[in-house]
């Protein structure tokens, strides 16, 4: 047993001696410095381990007298956790700072040691005045260490800090002395029940004490000085301030909670919440990386404070593990990630977040950066994710929905600026290299690994989690390590993994889930073949892809809402990162992730509500909820955003267009279906909920058909082939949602049938476009033309896909249309049917446009020698093509399983007679249609073939052209603004109103952020006034009686 008091003794002893040893030999001094840090780490780790084993907490009575007569220290498990973290950070930060320390002066090391010791003291001491002494020790060392970077910025910041610190210590001391006067003791444990709170003066004293500490946590708006400090000090020191100091102060506030009157807690929560939201809001406009980190730090501490204060108010807390997950998760997450990011800021050496693009030259650093960003935002697999999940669940269970919204809103704002920053970093255009040294590099890496490890550990702590759902990440990591393998091999490994996973998963799934399994996994497997065509080095592509695909599978087998949400988030992140890989996808990816996260947060809130109502996290439990309207709306909206329903579709075209060409097929053919799956799952569980007398499915139906309409209309006006297909996808998803909303046997059959056919033809189209773009370096359709002769194979598959898409018999698309109208009429949704029909005729416009502008018409001179794309683009197309032809010929191949799957939930309303499907209204014999069509096609064809000898092939310009020979294909190929007249007639419907709307919202939010940050004038005195205002407002809000 090592007495924890030795933490102080060793560090102080070393601090006293360093100066002496330095005179003998600097190396010895350095060695002692690190040895000391190692020793205090050892002591804290030793105690942490002991306490985990169930040993009694260490109670240290100094001077040999029992409290309250002497100062005592306490080291329980909570203290041990904080000590371990602080000391570990202390050690690694020292490693990181070592070079700087060496350059400057041994004094920096002395100050540093004393700072770490002071933080340890803050955590352990139980005596108020002793706490004050340690507080001052940490403050003074920090004041001095701020000048590690000896420039006017850090020194002005330091001075502002001192002024704030001076005020804080004054307030703290006044509080302390009056508590002593009224409570008769300086010992925390003896003050708790001493009756100090019976008097107004006692409450005031407590208030001063707590709020002085609170100001050290930098609450909004009393935090201008802190931002300046974060911005200007050496990143190594900033990491200590942001993580270690904040941690210690946070722990002190935690220690004080028993002392506080219960009325403090709501106020603390409120301050935390306001700080969290406002800091993130103001962070939006920030361009200086370190100041941005400052905003983020402050926000995170606000969140932590709010979470703590809220948890303490819960009437019924489910279990201790919840507290550990929430507070521990949030805390460790912030602690490691923020320190890591500050270090990274020091390595990158760039102030402006736009200049961070140089990090892209250094893949390991980029990986680390990405990891920290994800962790900070609270995404899996990092601890913050579990914490936020549990927090939302517990808040909901305690009927604090307002808080759920506050936290989610703040998180979203934070995600926006962090992802924006990350986006800049990914887009590399510079050749500048980052100089890294192992000493700086190592701590960062270790912290990321720590985060990952703790995140994985989270699965054991949170109820409803299962480590299987984190396994894809492991596979991703393995693939990342195997990056040196040839691409095709990696691709094959992926393919094998997906196939094996399907082989294991699909038989285990039931009815509709199984069908979606086929869509997700088999669809992905086919699309994976496309990626074999890649030639360049592409770190991270396959790892991300495999995580995404396997998580899609996991989505289907999720038993609890947490498993579902976890997989959902994995897919969201990986797809975001994959989209971000596109060359110009910066903005599109940001919009994508913003909307996706907003959707995910809605889902989270919905699941929280469900948890409140059922008390369990199992998905099946949803079915037992009586009043499920709100949950349906929240979850449904989340899913709809992912689908890109009209009004929330602004992310979709950009993301589809700017993603890498061979990833877009995944987005459209596979990923878009996860929202559909979510909606179906919701409908299975909740049925047809009604909210305030409104049949929600009715609204859903209209949303679906409007999406179909606007998707088709907007697609008709695009010049960019990928954007066109993106809008087309949107429109098709609209039909699927419409059919789903019908909520009948026929409706669901339609919906799933459409899902399958959409996978097939959109798979073909996007793969074909990927192949096309691999040969033609433009996406503008009017710059192509006449490519039918260059790439006949692609043309044939596109032709078939387009015919299938447009719903023209005899191909499979017609089946979907027929089912759709039958089900709509059966339901009695006539107007929807009419609009759907209109939309489907508009679809012809863009269908023709693709074929004509790209493959027909006048070939361009520049593209004359373009060849068929690589075989890897062709194979998946033809696999899908085979599917289309099979389904067209024998629709029962797919319809029968779909019908039987759906009949688990509804009585079947259609029946079969041989190949004829008969609904209550009409009938359709796909096989006969195919036969007749082939017949009537063959007769004239035979006649023309009979005349083929008379046919002469002519050259490009040999056309009837009013006696003049057109000179250039550019002027002869009618392709640009193809539907000008349509635009004239209906263009007003296609104006980007929704985009403008969301743009305005973003603008307003940014402006508000910009407005609020005007508070931070840069004047140290004003900051002191802010502190005073903060204090007074808090006090008067509290209304001490």
């Amino acid at each position, binding site marked *: 047993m090592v007495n924890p008091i030795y933490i102080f003794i060793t560090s102080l002893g070393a601090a006293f001696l360093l100066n002496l040893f330095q005179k003998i030999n600097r190396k010895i001094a350095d060695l002692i410095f690190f040895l000391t840090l190692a020793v205090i780490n050892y002591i804290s780790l030793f105690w942490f381990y002991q306490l985990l084993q169930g040993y009694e907490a260490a109670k240290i009575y100094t001077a040999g007298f029992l409290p309250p007569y002497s100062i005592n220290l306490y080291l329980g498990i909570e203290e041990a956790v904080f000590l371990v973290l602080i000391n570990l950070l202390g050690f690694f930060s020292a490693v990181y700072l070592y070079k700087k320390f060496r350059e400057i002066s041994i004094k920096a090391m002395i100050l540093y040691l004393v700072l770490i010791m002071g933080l340890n003291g803050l955590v352990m001491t139980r005596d108020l005045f002793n706490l004050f002494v340690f507080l001052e020790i940490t403050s003074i060392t920090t004041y001095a260490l701020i000048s590690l970077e000896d420039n006017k910025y850090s020194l002005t910041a330091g001075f502002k800090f001192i002024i704030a610190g001076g005020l804080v210590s004054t307030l703290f001391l006044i509080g302390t002395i009056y508590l002593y006067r009224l409570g008769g003791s300086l010992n925390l444990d003896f003050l708790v029940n001493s009756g100090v709170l019976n008097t107004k003066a006692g409450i005031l004293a407590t208030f001063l004490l707590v709020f002085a500490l609170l100001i050290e946590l930098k609450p909004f708006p009393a935090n201008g000085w802190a931002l300046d400090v974060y911005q200007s000090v050496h990143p190594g020191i900033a990491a200590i301030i942001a993580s270690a100091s904040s941690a210690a102060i946070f722990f002190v506030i935690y220690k004080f909670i028993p002392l506080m009157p219960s009325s403090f807690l709501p106020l603390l929560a409120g301050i935390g919440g306001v700080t969290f939201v406002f800091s993130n809001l103001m962070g939006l406009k920030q361009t200086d990386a370190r100041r941005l980190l400052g905003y983020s730090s402050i926000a995170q501490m606000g969140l932590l404070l709010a979470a703590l204060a809220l948890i303490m108010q819960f009437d019924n807390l489910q279990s201790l593990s919840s507290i550990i997950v929430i507070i521990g998760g949030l805390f460790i997450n912030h602690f490691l990630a923020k320190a890591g990011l500050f270090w990274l800021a020091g390595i990158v050496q760039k102030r402006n977040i736009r200049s961070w693009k140089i990090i892209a030259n250094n893949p390991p650093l980029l990986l680390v950066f990405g990891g920290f960003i994800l962790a900070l935002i609270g995404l899996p697999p990092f601890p913050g994710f579990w914490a936020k999940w549990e927090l939302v669940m517990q808040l909901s269970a305690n009927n604090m929905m307002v808080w759920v919204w506050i936290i989610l809103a703040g998180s979203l704002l934070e995600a926006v600026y962090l992802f924006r920053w990350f986006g800049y970093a990914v887009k590399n255009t510079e050749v500048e290299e980052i100089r890294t040294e192992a000493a700086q590099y190592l701590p960062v890496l270790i912290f990321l690994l720590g985060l990952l490890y703790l995140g994985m550990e989270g699965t054991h702590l949170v109820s409803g989690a299962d480590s299987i759902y984190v396994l894809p990440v492991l596979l991703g990591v393995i693939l990342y390590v195997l990056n040196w393998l040839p691409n095709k091999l990696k691709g094959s490994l992926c393919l094998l993994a997906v196939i094996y996973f399907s082989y294991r998963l699909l038989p285990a799934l039931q009815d509709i889930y199984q069908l979606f399994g086929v869509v997700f996994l088999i669809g992905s497997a086919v699309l994976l073949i496309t990626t074999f065509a890649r030639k360049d080095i592409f770190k991270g592509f396959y790892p991300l892809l495999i995580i995404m695909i396997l998580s899609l599978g996991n989505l289907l087998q999720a038993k609890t809402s947490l498993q579902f949400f976890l997989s959902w988030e994995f897919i969201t992140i990986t797809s975001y990162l994959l989209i971000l890989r596109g060359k110009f996808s910066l903005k599109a990816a940001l919009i994508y992730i913003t909307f996706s996260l907003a959707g995910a947060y809605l889902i989270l809130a919905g699941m929280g509500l469900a948890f409140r109502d059922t008390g369990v996290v199992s998905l099946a439990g949803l079915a037992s909820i009586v009043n499920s309207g709100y949950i349906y709306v929240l979850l449904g909206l989340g899913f709809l955003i992912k689908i890109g329903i009209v009004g929330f579709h602004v992310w979709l075209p950009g993301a589809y267009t700017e993603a890498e060409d061979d990833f877009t097929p995944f987005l459209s053919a596979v990923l878009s279906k996860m929202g559909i799956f979510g909606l179906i799952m919701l409908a299975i569980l909740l049925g047809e909920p009604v909210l305030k007398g409104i049949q929600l499915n009715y609204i859903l139906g209209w949303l679906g058909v409007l999406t179909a309409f606007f998707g088709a209309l907007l697609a008709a006006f695009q010049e960019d082939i990928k954007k066109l297909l993106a809008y087309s996808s949107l429109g098709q998803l609209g039909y699927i949602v419409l059919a789903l909303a019908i909520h009948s046997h026929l409706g669901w059959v339609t919906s799933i049938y459409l899902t399958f056919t959409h996978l097939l033809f959109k798979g073909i189209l996007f793969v074909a476009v990927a192949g096309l773009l691999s040969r033609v370096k433009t996406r503008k359709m009017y710059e192509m033309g006449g490519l039918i002769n260059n790439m006949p194979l692609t043309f044939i598959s596109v032709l078939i896909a387009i015919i299938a898409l447009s719903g023209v018999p005899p191909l499979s698309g017609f089946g979907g249309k027929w089912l759709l109208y*039958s089900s709509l009429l059966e339901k009695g949704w006539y107007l929807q049917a009419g609009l759907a029909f209109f939309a489907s005729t508009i679809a012809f416009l863009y269908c023709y446009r693709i074929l004509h502008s790209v493959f027909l018409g006048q070939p361009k001179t520049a593209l004359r020698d373009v060849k068929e794309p690589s075989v890897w683009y062709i194979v998946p197309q033809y696999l899908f093509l085979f599917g289309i032809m099979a389904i067209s010929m024998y629709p029962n191949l797919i319809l029968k399983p779909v019908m039987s799957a759906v009949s688990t939930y509804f009585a079947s309303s259609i029946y079969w007679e041989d190949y004829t499907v008969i609904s209550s209204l009409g009938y359709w014999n796909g096989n006969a249609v195919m036969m*007749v069509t082939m017949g009537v096609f063959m007769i004239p064809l035979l006649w023309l073939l009979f005349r083929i000898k008379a046919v002469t092939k002519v050259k490009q*310009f040999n056309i009837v*052209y009013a006696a003049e020979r057109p000179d250039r294909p550019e002027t002869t190929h009618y392709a640009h603004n193809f539907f000008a007249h*349509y635009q004239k007639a209906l263009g007003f419907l296609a104006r980007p109103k929704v985009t403008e709307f969301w743009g305005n919202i973003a603008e307003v939010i940014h402006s508000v952020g910009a407005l609020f940050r005007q508070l931070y004038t840069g004047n140290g005195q004003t900051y002191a006034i802010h502190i005073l205002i903060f204090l007074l407002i808090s006090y008067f809000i509290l209304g001490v009686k």
Partner: protein
Amino acid sequence: MNSVTLILIGNAILSLFLITIWGLTLNGMVMKIVARVHGRFGPPVWQPFLDIIKNNAKRTMIAHGTMFFLGPVFRIASGIGTYLFIPAIFGSTVFSNFSFSGDVFLVMYFIFFGQLGMALGAGESGHPYSPIGVSRGLAQMTAFEVPFSLAVISLAVQYNTLSITEIVAAQQGSILNWTIFTNPLAAIAALIALLGMNMHNPFSIVIAPQEIPIGPPTEYHSAYLGMLQTNRAIFNIAKLVLYMNLFFGGATNFITLILKTFLIYIFTSVAVGVAFPRFRTEQSIRFFLKYPALIGLLAIIIVSIK
């Protein structure tokens, strides 16, 4: 292939043959009538027959590519198919064609098959006028399909079926059972749509004889053109038969069919066509989406309230 199938095919060929003859004759008659209205003498009634024979007999053909070659095939296949999916004469086995393959939606969608194929063929010709015509045609099509589809939905609601045979069956007995009397709004909407479908004035901008000689088929000649002309007869009559079935009680024999289709054609398309000037594309789109669409909506609303 069993005997049932063979009989089916035989019947279909017979039905198609007769209807082709009538279609060509109808076109000839209409040309004559229009000419007379214009104050011209006009070609003889059998001119369409002559044209087809002449064009198919031409010795040389030019091809711009495979799709160009296949375009007319798509077009005529669609014409024939459309016709063959409609039960032409109520109660007749010969003229029930292949109507067991699908209901009215199949017919509506099969029309697009030819339009798409033809448009693609025309597109490959490389002649700018072809895609211009296609662009106009497609745009206009989306518009006139709106009142038409609304009318069809209204019918489906009214008769509670999508099967053409059953719709015709419901109209038997009295002239007052015809849809045009039981559901006049739907009929009006659909008939206005028919004007657009037939591409006569005022909706003739697709072919636009004045400024872009003949629209999508610009580059087509000889046997291709012959095929297109044949199709024009079959397709035209197919649409008329469809309308007859949906709104005018269908036909129980060939004579009734001839009479009804003739009258429908004359009194809707031709009469209106000669009396009006031409719309620009965006004008016709706006037109269809205003009153005809509104009438169609009303038709649905009235029917569904009943």
